[in-house]
């Protein structure tokens, strides 16, 4: 039911981990729903030089998490903010029907981390 891409990303996810003294952190989900995604950012001159994730969740939660970090890494803040859910789905060759509950969470976590960075920078 899952595409080859999803399984590839799920079994060999890139950018797993945390970033010490991260410039932005975004967390979404809850243990009640069965998914928690945390995304960590390092920003250098307005560019996301490092993007990492930690995810408790299903195959979709983990594969979208790694894809979001890969899509965002190397982009400017503005570019990263323009990543859409379709970009994520395309990178994974789609998701099976009924599995869209948590498919947007990783992107939400990224946007939250970016917001957190912007907020943080203001101070």
């Amino acid at each position, binding site marked *: 039911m*899952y595409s080859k891409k999803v*399984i590839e990303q*799920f*079994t060999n*996810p890139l950018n*797993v981990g945390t970033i010490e003294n991260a410039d932005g952190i975004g*967390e979404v989900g809850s*243990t*009640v*729903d*069965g*998914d*928690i*995604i*945390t995304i960590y950012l390092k920003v250098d001159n307005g560019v996301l030089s490092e993007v990492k994730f*930690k*995810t*408790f*969740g*299903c*195959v*979709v*939660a*983990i594969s979208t998490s790694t894809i979001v970090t890969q899509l965002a890494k190397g982009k400017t803040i503005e570019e990263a903010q323009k990543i859409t859910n379709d970009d994520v789905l395309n990178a994974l060759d789609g998701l099976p029907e*009924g599995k869209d*509950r*948590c498919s947007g969470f990783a992107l939400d976590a990224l946007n939250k981390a970016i917001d957190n960075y912007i907020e943080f920078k203001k101070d």
Partner: protein
Amino acid sequence: MKQVYMDHSATTPVDPQVVDAMLPYFTEKFGNSSSFHSFGREAAKALSAARHKIADCIGAKSNEIIFTSGGTESDNLAILGTVGQYAGVSHIITSVIEHPAVLNTCAYLERIGHEVTYIPVDADGIIDIEALVSSIKENTVLISVMHANNEIGSIQPIREIADIANSKGIVFHTDAVQSLGKIPVNVNDLGVDLLSISSHKIHGPKGAGMLYIKDGTSISPIVFGGGHERGLRPGTENISGIVGLATAVDLAMQRYDVDSRHLLDLRNSLIEKTMATIDGVRLNGHSTKRLPNNVNLSFRSVEGESLLMMLDLKGIAVSTGSACSSKSLKASHVLASIGLAADFIHGSLRISLGRGNSMEDIDYLVSSLQEIVSRLREISAL
């Protein structure tokens, strides 16, 4: 790739002996048991032999066996058929851990105006007898409590409930779909009025099952047609399926001592080895009042569907109570009913063993779990 099937509570492979017994009934012995001619008589003979065989195996009389399409239909027939005997609003007592075949039938009865009480279970998944007794009302017509649970394998005190029901003149049904062949299932010892069995859980074909209806217990049909199965289940009988079911039941009885001991050894070894080598694991369900083939474990900080996928990639087939793997995205109602925290429900794994599993399979599963759980925990945000 190595393939290890450990999801026998979902379904089982049909035993080759069962297939052999069934085959003639597709091609040469294809008659309709209602027909006058020799073809019909041959089918009628097979039907009768199957009925006797099953009756013998569970301590029933052959006229007490009604063939159905499986566990779901048997449960529906037992519940709707009993309620159909009474005018006015009926009250049914069941448990919170029943299979959807019972729970959704009860939900339907509630929608059309009947009353249902769902009795809770304790932390081990055993029904609260006191709550059951105190929920009995004037209009209680049926108690339906499963013999053994399909997710956590907890074995219910059926005899005790039967005695209560009998003393109050209330019909008592039990779903023995998961227990048959794993623990003794004898209708007299259990003291039940109605009992459901499904063929495909005991190495028989899918789409066959039966309902035991004790002499003197009246139920109404839920489908209407010809006079088959005493008019309680009209429709030309699935002879090959019924022959398969009877052969599978017979085989389960013949192999009972060997199978149950083998399963118990595997089960205990799996629990021991997993608990000893992986931390943050809990066993869900009762430690001893549990089916010999059921293991239900929760792994802290990992989600069940991810576990299933990693195990599947190693050829291991098991199941989970996590919402993420279910079509409805609803977490297991059984695990919630034993008070399990949400993260533990999402991290649950049901391993249901079968007669074909070996100690080598157990070791392969345990070593795979060690690797997979630690990998998923590295990724996990918890």
